[in-house]
Structure formats: structure tokens, C-alpha cells
């Protein structure tokens, strides 16, 4: 049989398929079992969140923020709150800063676990899939204790946070930290460093650092390509500058080559890093106010423009805000990391076999909901 006689055939997937991270149309040409052309169609989850926000009062737009990226809702709440605080010149109390940091780091852990869930699903590893979901439930329980909801927290609000932490919360966060540290070894043995997984993911869908730079990748995907993308240390966000990021070990971008395996490994490392950050944050909880000033439905916001960047679990999130002195935002726009990740994936997945398509795409941790908004 002559293999060079193969012609490329069209291959369609989606837009609704359990192996995809969200509603995403995939049109490809397949040569043998390799993808020779690939294009993604998006927009199936386009809800016009940003436009909807301009129709609401300043204090009523917060629930929409949770629907941009439901898994990492805390990051959008924080980006919006920080931008609005710079418009109203509100100083956030130290206690609120620490609580915000705890929420954001828990969101990061929860989002990374969700990414690993999709990786485990792509590998048809049912056991790890259920183990990861089980451990993610604990993070959702902590959100529930804090805000009363598992998703759509509506917790970080301009001026501080909505509720103070309750008795026993810090202890439960520390318990979760200890649990994760223990469980990460299980994930490593069963999933991340399992010989079959390493064999399959090494060199798969590689994104070189030049490519990552040219696409403007941020966050863990950029770090996996060897770019030091951790902006939390230097950006002056929250109280990150007081914390030690090099525990349990310093992450070096040079160790990462940009393949699928590195994108999975960086998420495990970031979970461990977040565990250490949570521990340090729990020591720094100070007594005091948790909310400086709350914006009422009849309160206008001074005219002006502001923007704020937050290091989300999937990458850099920037919120642009415009006020014309009215009761509602004149303009809201977000720069989201999933857009760049999706476009980088579109290029990096060329040459990947159909079998590995789902796995390689899952490792990019794209949120279609976030991309479409």
C-alpha cells in the first residue's frame, strides 16, 4: 500500500461535542491521520456581556462579570473592581486585600484543576477525572462558605469584598492546602508523569517561545513556552509583593520547552505555588474593615477612563472602563487570554494526529465562554 497516495479529506467536529472545551466549530483537512489544515469557528457563546453591562447601574453590573469566564470568575471581579476603584479613588483596606488574594488564588487552583479534568478526560483516565473533580469540590465548598455560591460568586466588589470571612474559614483553607499538597503526588503518579502520558505528550503541539511572543501569550501557556510571565511579583497587585513566590521551589522558564507535557506540568506547579501563597496570605490577615465604601444604585462615578490588569489563571486579563459621570458605565471592554491561546492552538495543532487533538487542545486551557463573551 502506498501511503504517499493519500489525499487530504475534510474533517468536521463540533460546535457541540463533549471533547471540546466549549462551543467551538472545528474544520480541518486530514492527511492520513494528521491535521494538515485547521480552522476554528467561534461565536456560539456570544452573549454580549460587555454591552449588557453598559445598560446597568454601576452596582448592578457585577453579576455579569461572573459569566465571562465562570471557572475563573474571581479574576474578572477583581479586574473590574480595581479599575472602578481607580476611577472613584477608593483605598481598599488591607484586610480586604488579603481576602481578595485568598479568593483569587483559590480560583486559580479551581481553574487549573478544571483544566486537568479536561486533560484526564481526553486521556480517558476515568479514575483521575473523578479524583480531580472530588478535590475541586472542596474549593467550591470554600467559595460557598465565603460567598454562598459555588459559581457566580459576586464577592469581590469595588471598595473591598462583600462579606467578611467567617470563623473557621482560614483553618479550612489551610486544611485544603495540606490536602492538595498530598494529592498532587497522586496526580503526578497517575497522570502527569505516568510513562504513557509522558511518551504521548512530549513534543506534542509545541509552541516555541518566539511563537508565544508573536501571539502575545500570557500566563501559564507563555510560561510553558519558556517566557517568564509571572507578573504578580512586580505589578503591585494586592499584597503579592510581600509574598515569597519561590516556594516550594523557584520555577524557571528555561526548564520549559512549550509542548503539551510542559503545559500540563506548569499547572501542577502553579497549584503548588498557589498553595504556598495561600498559606502566607492566611498569616497576613489583619483585623479591620473588609469594605471601604459601597457604591449605591444612585451613585454616579466620576468621568474618566481607567484600566487594570490581573494575572488570571489562563493569562493576563485587562479591564478597560469608561465613565461619563453617569449612573451606568459608558464603556466596558476586556482583553482576555483565551483569544490568544485559541489562535496559538490553531497553529500549534497542525500536524497533530486526530487521536491527540483533544488532548493537545485541552492543554491550552481555552475557555470559549471567555473568548466569545
Amino acid at each position, binding site marked *: 500500500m502506498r501511503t504517499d497516495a493519500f489525499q487530504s479529506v475534510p474533517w468536521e467536529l463540533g460546535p457541540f461535542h463533549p471533547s471540546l472545551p466549549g462551543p467551538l466549530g472545528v474544520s480541518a483537512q486530514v492527511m492520513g491521520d494528521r491535521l494538515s489544515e485547521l480552522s476554528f469557528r467561534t461565536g456560539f*457563546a*456570544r452573549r454580549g456581556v460587555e454591552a449588557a453591562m453598559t445598560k446597568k447601574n454601576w452596582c448592578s453590573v457585577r453579576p455579569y462579570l461572573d459569566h465571562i469566564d*465562570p471557572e475563573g470568575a474571581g479574576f474578572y471581579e477583581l479586574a473590574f473592581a480595581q479599575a472602578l476603584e481607580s476611577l472613584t479613588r477608593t483605598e481598599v483596606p488591607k484586610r480586604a486585600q488579603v481576602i481578595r488574594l485568598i479568593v483569587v488564588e483559590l480560583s486559580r487552583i479551581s481553574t487549573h484543576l478544571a483544566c486537568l479534568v479536561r486533560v484526564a478526560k481526553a486521556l480517558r483516565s476515568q479514575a483521575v477525572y473523578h479524583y480531580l473533580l472530588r478535590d475541586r*469540590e472542596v474549593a467550591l465548598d470554600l467559595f460557598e462558605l465565603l460567598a454562598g455560591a*459555588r459559581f457566580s460568586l459576586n464577592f469581590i466588589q469595588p471598595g473591598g469584598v462583600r462579606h467578611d470571612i467567617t470563623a473557621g474559614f482560614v483553618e479550612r483553607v489551610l486544611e485544603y492546602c495540606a490536602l492538595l499538597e498530598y494529592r498532587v503526588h497522586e496526580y503526578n503518579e497517575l497522570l502527569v508523569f505516568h510513562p504513557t502520558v509522558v511518551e504521548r505528550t512530549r513534543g506534542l503541539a509545541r509552541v516555541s517561545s518566539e511563537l508565544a511572543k508573536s501571539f502575545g501569550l500570557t500566563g501559564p501557556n507563555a510560561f510553558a513556552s519558556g517566557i517568564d510571565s509571572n507578573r504578580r511579583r512586580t505589578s503591585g497587585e494586592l499584597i503579592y509583593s510581600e509574598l515569597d513566590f519561590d516556594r516550594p521551589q523557584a520555577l524557571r522558564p528555561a526548564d520549559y520547552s512549550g509542548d503539551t507535557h510542559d503545559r500540563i506540568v506548569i499547572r501542577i506547579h502553579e497549584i503548588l505555588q498557589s498553595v504556598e501563597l495561600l498559606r502566607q496570605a492566611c498569616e497576613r490577615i489583619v483585623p479591620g474593615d473588609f469594605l471601604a465604601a459601597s457604591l449605591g444604585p444612585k451613585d454616579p462615578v466620576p468621568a474618566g477612563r481607567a484600566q487594570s490588569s490581573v494575572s488570571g489563571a489562563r493569562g493576563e486579563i485587562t479591564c478597560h472602563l469608561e465613565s461619563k459621570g453617569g449612573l451606568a458605565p459608558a464603556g466596558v471592554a476586556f482583553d482576555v487570554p483565551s483569544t490568544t491561546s485559541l489562535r496559538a492552538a490553531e497553529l500549534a495543532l497542525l500536524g497533530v494526529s486526530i487521536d491527540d487533538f483533544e488532548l493537545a487542545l485541552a492543554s491550552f486551557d481555552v475557555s470559549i465562554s471567555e473568548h466569545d463573551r
Partner: protein
Amino acid sequence: MGSALTAWSQSQSLSFYSINTGCCADEVQSSVGARYDIERFGALEQTEPEAANLLLINGMVTEQAALEIQKIYDRMPRPKYVIAVGACASNRGLFCQKGTDATARPVDRIIPVDIYVPGCPPRPEAILNGLIALQEKIQSRLEARDNNAD
């Protein structure tokens, strides 16, 4: 007797195909997970609509997605059931206001819906409750048909 058995077996072996358009998909995933374990009620997730008799609509249905959902519904074999999970699928939820560029519609304008699960997003318990409500509905419908035949 025959249709009582059919009713029981049909309601206890619902294979579902989920359409994930929004955040309710995360809660459906949690329901599949070990803690809530939707499989103990006989519902098993399928990867092809041809193998499913229950469609879960998780989240917002945009104009563009509506066409695709119609196609998926048509591919499913009869008898088939639909659960609209969450406020967005039921009545557009947060995005029901005019003047935005959201072009969504409630899913019952596209395909018939059997059960609506409220919540934004609904908790896994609520999703399980919706499934149990559907099972009861299937049983009572088939029993009623049986009684009419007598």
C-alpha cells in the same frame, strides 16, 4: 404490566448528551463527578446524540447555536427528552434585556422542553432533582397511557 416495565426501564436508563454553552456546564460536570454521581440514577453521559435519549441544554442559546441544537435534537432517536439547565436556557436569564447585542432565545422556542431547572447556575442537587422529576414524568405519562388503553 408491559408498559409499567417499559416506563420503569425507560426512566431509569436515560443516556444524556449535554450541550455546553455556558457556566451550567461546570455544574453538570460536578453532577457527573463522584460526589453527586448522576450515574446512580441511571443517567450516563454519551458522546454522540445518536446514543442519547436525553438532551441537557446547559447555558445560553444564541441564534447561531440554535440551528446546531436543532440538528442535534433531530439526530436523537425517539423517545427523547430535554432538560433546560439554568436560567439562561429557560428564559435567557441575565441576558433577557433589550438593547444589547445578545441574540439569545429561550430553548423552548427551538425544541420542546420537558423540565426546567432554575438557578444561575443551579446546584448539582437541583440538576439531580430535575432528572428525578423527568423520571417521574416519564413514568406517570406511560402509566396514564396504559390506563386509557384499558
